[in-house]
């Protein structure tokens, strides 16, 4: 099955990014395709290459980058939400790309399931 994810909150402040990540890993382990992970609202902060969380805790941004590297998962940051919050190409972590809201609608159209993670 093709599953799309929408993440509306940034790393650490809310559990959304963690839950979505664990869900994505479990979906891939079961042989599903994660068609796209779309980051909207404060979710765009999941793509910041500037984060430096404490060493003894999970590195949320790097985890997403690794997911993209291992599985080719399409990680898309909404351009408008990114601009609003200062997330642009210059500070984008590896594995992410910036694109329009149309990509979210496309995910809804192309995927079999769309799961939303937020506040």
């Amino acid at each position: 099955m093709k599953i799309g994810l929408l993440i509306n909150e940034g790393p650490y402040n809310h559990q959304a990014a963690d839950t979505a990540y664990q869900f994505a890993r479990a979906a891939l382990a079961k042989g599903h395709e994660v068609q796209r992970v779309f980051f909207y609202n404060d979710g765009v902060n999941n793509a910041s290459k500037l984060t430096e969380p404490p060493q003894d805790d999970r590195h949320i941004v790097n985890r997403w980058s690794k997911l993209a590297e291992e599985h080719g998962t399409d990680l898309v940051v909404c351009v408008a939400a990114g601009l609003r919050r200062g997330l642009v190409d210059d500070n984008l972590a590896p594995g992410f790309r910036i694109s329009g809201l149309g990509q979210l609608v496309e995910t809804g159209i192309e995927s079999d399931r769309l799961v939303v993670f937020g506040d």
Partner: protein
Amino acid sequence: MSQVEEETAVEAEVQAVVKKFMFVNRKAPYGTIYALEGLEVVLISAAFDQDVSLAFLDDGVYQLLKGQQTKALEVKNFSPTYRALEGYDVEKLYVERESLEARGIREDQLLVPVQVVSAKEMAELMEQQDVIIGF
């Protein structure tokens, strides 16, 4: 196929599929950004010719109240956007009766024409959708 031809073919295939998208609004405006940024997704989905409806329940019904004046807050008053939806062929706005009544709001206090439905009817409408996006 060249890249351009392939992308055009995928785009055409994607456009050919029409799904029922429902955008669920349960939060009040201005206290958080979800009402505003949620509307932006609605407008984009209209451009994709999908079958779009909006649901307003719980505090989401407050988004549709007439008379929003944001000058003193110095934030953008985005409520006129609800009136612009019609121009984008987004005409299915469902508002839950129980949520209006719990808040003492009458239908004539809303800034756009809507269909007021019961919670049970709203639940059935939700069941009919292909994609449900809430913020």
